[in-house]
């Protein structure tokens, strides 16, 4: 499967999840499960775990709000009905199931390609060269900032500017950590643009490294795309037929 195919598959599967009602999600889940079992088989458990970690707090929140506080579903509110907590629970379950499917598909696609280096993944995408350059630059700077955050945090804790736990002090001065990280990154980037890049013509090395790797959709790509489209269509049919 190619990155382009995976991106298209994810887009169609997610679109299917968005437009499907409760029953319609079943087809989407079936295709997502098949994808996971065939494409990332030994790590399906990890994918489920990651999706659960993302969804669990949100699902808990939804339960508290809709079932605990509001006590009825939006449809009952709209029709001015008395409403029941079980209707609210069904509503939460539908929304949570939709969101979980979206997260699961994304995680599965990421895991499918997580052995690729960023260059290899971006190189294979059929997107304009400028978009590739932007993705690569941003990924590199994310790592620069991440490293700066870690070091700056230690220094600012040592200086007493921020605290390790939640505190009023952090509310007042936490932004200083953002400033330190920002200015560190600017200094690094400015020096690179002034010295290293002009000397080496480094940016000119990037395009050859990213070009020429675009891959057409492969037969597995078409198969998965077809399955995703079929799931979307079946989902819509189920919604139409059963409401």
């Amino acid at each position: 499967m190619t990155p382009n195919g995976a991106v298209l598959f994810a887009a169609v599967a997610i679109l299917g999840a968005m437009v499907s009602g409760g029953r319609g999600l079943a087809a989407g889940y079936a295709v997502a499960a098949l994808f996971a079992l065939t494409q990332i088989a030994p790590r399906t458990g990890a994918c489920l775990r990651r999706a659960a970690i993302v969804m669990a707090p949100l699902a808990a929140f939804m339960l508290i709000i809709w079932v605990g506080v509001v006590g009825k579903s939006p449809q009952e509110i709209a029709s001015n009905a008395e409403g029941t907590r079980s209707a609210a629970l069904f509503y939460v379950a539908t929304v949570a199931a939709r969101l979980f499917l979206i997260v699961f598909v994304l995680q599965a696609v990421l895991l499918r390609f997580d052995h690729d280096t960023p260059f290899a993944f971006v190189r294979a995408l059929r997107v304009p060269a400028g978009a590739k350059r932007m993705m690569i630059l941003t990924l590199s700077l994310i790592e620069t900032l991440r490293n700066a955050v870690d070091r700056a945090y230690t220094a600012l804790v040592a200086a007493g500017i921020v605290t390790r736990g939640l505190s009023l002090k952090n509310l007042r001065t936490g932004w200083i950590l953002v400033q330190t990280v920002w200015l560190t990154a600017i200094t690094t980037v400015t020096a690179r643009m002034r010295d290293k890049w002009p000397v080496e013509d480094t940016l000119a090395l990037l395009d050859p490294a990213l070009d020429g790797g675009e891959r057409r959709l492969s037969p597995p790509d078409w198969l998965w795309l077809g399955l995703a489209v079929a799931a979307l269509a079946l989902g819509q049919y189920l919604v139409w037929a059963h409401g």
Partner: protein
Amino acid sequence: MAKEFIAGPNFSGRSEALLTRLRGGAQGEQRAFFIGPYAEAALSGLSSSVADEIALYRARPPRARDVFSRLDPVAAGARKPQSLSGGEQVLLALHCFSLSMHDTLGIDTALEQLDAVNRAAAIDYLSSGAFDALLIDNHAAPSGWRQTVRPPSPSPAFVIDWAALNATVVPRAAPVIDIRRLNFTYRHGPTIFRDAAAQLVPGRAYRLFGANGAGKTTLLKILVGALAPAASEIALDGKPYAPWRGGGAPIAIATQNPDQQWCGATLEEDLERRRGALPAGVAIPDIPKLAAFARALGVSGLDQHLYELPLAARKRVSWLWPLAGVHPWLVLDEPTVGQDAATRENLAALLARLCAAGHGIVFVTHDENFARLLPHAVLRVENGGISSL
């Protein structure tokens, strides 16, 4: 092949001379590769994995040239270049150069981040390689290289008044840091310390040794309160010490990359915020005193925008808070990177005076010349423990 060593003190124009030479080749005739002195200056800034960094520079078709391989590219392949230590980044850059189409290599003090063994290997590679090399370094020139000596600037900038700094040293009673039992494991990560123990006695300097990932930085983070250990017991003059619960730490840090420690955009902002954050019971230094320190370190005004200073000057200003004696313990991470020999010697002498006056110092360095100048004990961090040598 031309091998040139550019010598001279800080602010004599060495770096600009090097860059001018590197830029000077006619278009298409030579391509230069630059490894600079500042944070991540060895890296392209275009990759987020070591494998990609190598792929970016690799010549196609490959060149028939010796490959410099002190960093295992296969083992390091999935790591992010930005998370490598400074020395590892330099080794990666040298590896990339050796695979690239570039014909000339310019290095501005970056070799100072290497330990003795890797430094010797790098010098050997530079000396014998079939390429032109230009090197700025604050240690002795490699033998056989042509030397260009930059004279000191006629109107020197950022001159340090060592006499004034030495005159500020006053007796100080630093507490004993007694690490009786230290346990720490990163969440979803390795165990760094397992019942480790050590004692840091004031009036001494300690050099922290350890391989990358052994726990040097983790230890420092725990001592300043940025990380909370588990099942541990640390005492400060016999009293329980747990800075991760708040209350501050009697430690002033100068980070390896000076930019990562500033609390403000200007020196004035930085110092005001530090003064305002001092815990109760710590004497707050007054602004005139801090301004005097800044002048002694070569900065004329507190309204100086920190990030507009040259790197060597920023490095010196990063010593201000530790040297101001606000806290009895000083932690200095690679304090002499990019500093000339005279600065290195004077800094070592000043730190020795601070120790004699009762301060405690912990430092990390690959600069053996500096380490030789500052009497110290060695703390080795490895295999979950801390041992004194």
